[in-house]
């Protein structure tokens, strides 16, 4: 049985989104997913969800390089929104640039930085972290 109810994927790459969802199915990662193509799209919707205390995602998988509003801008805005529930944010990017890696470390709200491609092992680790924090 899955332990996550809702996962939010913010990424502009449809192949990645398709793939990660498949992997999620395979390891039974979560019950449902919420997909946004860029930071702006995600921020608008998530802020209204949080405001109305609707179904807030447990985990956000955030890409960095996206059109309109990139991952950094999204992070800066999102962490300002007070949420009744702790949301686990993972930055998931292809960039292995040390500048990006170090920059992510400065965000306390970001659980970890995961370099693409993401497979079952990485998702399992996320799941394990979440379980340890919430059910032990």
């Amino acid at each position, binding site marked *: 049985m899955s332990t996550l109810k809702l996962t939010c994927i913010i990424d502009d*790459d449809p192949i990645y989104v398709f793939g990660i969802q498949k992997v999620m199915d395979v390891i039974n990662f979560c019950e449902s997913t919420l997909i946004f193509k860029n930071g702006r799209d995600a921020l608008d919707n998530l802020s209204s969800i949080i405001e109305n205390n609707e179904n807030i995602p447990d985990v956000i998988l955030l890409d960095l390089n996206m059109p309109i509003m990139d991952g950094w801008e999204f992070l800066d805005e999102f962490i300002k929104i007070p949420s009744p529930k702790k949301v686990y944010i993972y930055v998931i990017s292809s960039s292995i640039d040390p500048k990006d890696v170090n920059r992510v470390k400065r965000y306390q709200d970001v659980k970890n930085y995961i370099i693409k491609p993401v497979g079952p092992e990485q998702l399992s680790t996320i799941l394990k972290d979440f379980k340890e924090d919430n059910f032990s």
Partner: protein
Amino acid sequence: MNIKHSLLNIFQDNPTCWQLILDQALYGYLISQKNSPENFYINPALQEHLKLLLTDFKSEEFSFEIKEPLEKSEAKSIKTEAYFFLNGKKIASKKAHFLSFSFQQEEFYIAVFSSEKITRANAYQKTYDVGLAEKLKISEKAFQNNFEYGATGMALVSLEGKWLKVNKRISLMLGYTKEELFKLTFQDITVPEDLEKDLSLLKRLLDGEIDHYQLEKRYYHKNGSIVYAILAVSIVKNNDGLNLYFISQLIDITEMKRAEKRIKKLFKKSKEQNERLENFAHIVSHNLRSHAGNFSMLLELYESQLDEEDEIITMLSSASSNLQETIEHLSEIVNMHNSIKNTMESIAVLPVAKKTIENLSSQIQQHNLKITLAVDASLKVKAVPAYLESIFLNFISNAIKYSSPSKASFLEVNAEVEDAFIRIDFKDNGLGIDLEKHGHKLFKMYKTFHEHEDARGIGLFLTKNQIQAMGGKIEVESAVDEGTTFSIYLKKTT
């Protein structure tokens, strides 16, 4: 006491009195030994007068003659003429009162040059004019030669800008004959954009605000091309302070300008290329990675859903992981040079060497490789910790990988200070590399020289890049079947 009658005694007892009188006398005095005329004294007034005729007065070269020889110790003085010579050349003749006298059995003359009023004061004025004219004549000639054949362009230019006198160099520089130039003003051949700054400086010169100026400006050559020059201008005034004309000096810097332009162009080009390369690096490290990542993810997914092994999918997976690895290496190289500065620290060499050997101990034992470590514990290098570890790992695992199975293998690791660097040698007696054949591609990416299953041709390439990124260098010596010595130089720290 009657001083007048005692003068002789006074002077005899006080020779400095005489000295004062002669030194300060307005008339010229000359005292000379009759038989050896080169032995003479002339007082400052006469000296000054004669000196002013000459540019460089030295008594050794100076001599004189008397027109009428004097009789021995005459009671009265006679008026006659003295001829002055310099290096045997007559430079002056002067009338004087001569008196002959004897002193300690030697005959002397004394001459007083009063008749032509060679007083110190008027002698100065008179001979100054003569001397100056003389000097001017000499310097004018020197100036003429210098002017005409000098390496700089020189010109006299009227207050209105007309060329009054120009030298050969200017003709050469600007392509006009002298006659053509005389019909032009400098304004006519100045590149219009450069005229204003020249004219404004010229005006300040005319107004007496400045006494000279220098600027870089452009002229049009007769053939229409542009001549770059450094121009220096000063002004000549007459005794009343009225402006007469300008003296202009021109240095042609066209060649220098062209070279500078070429260098600037080259610099711009390499800057652009570098930017393209950085852009390329970004494409590699991000865009290519994400596509390759998608491939790998989808293949893995697909493979996991297969009931039995599919050969083509297996090969696709293998190709995909090779692609990933290649991109990994490329990005590593790119990032190496970008992120190096902040991560360098002072690291002791010995612990890193020991740790690497420890990590590889099972392989070392397996290949029976004997490692000797001669590294002083005090030696420290400026390095990125991960790179230094990777460098040691690479060389030691290379020594293991390419050890010779037919003999007792060893690896010697020595470190010593060499100037501002620490040189670390890795000397083995392994298979060796044919440097004549492979030397040029030894450190290139994906080059391998032995048929070894683990040889991927990335180790030395990465190592060299890491060493260079840390400001060091690498050297190699090798002979087939004898062994290889890699020497790396890393910056020494304390």
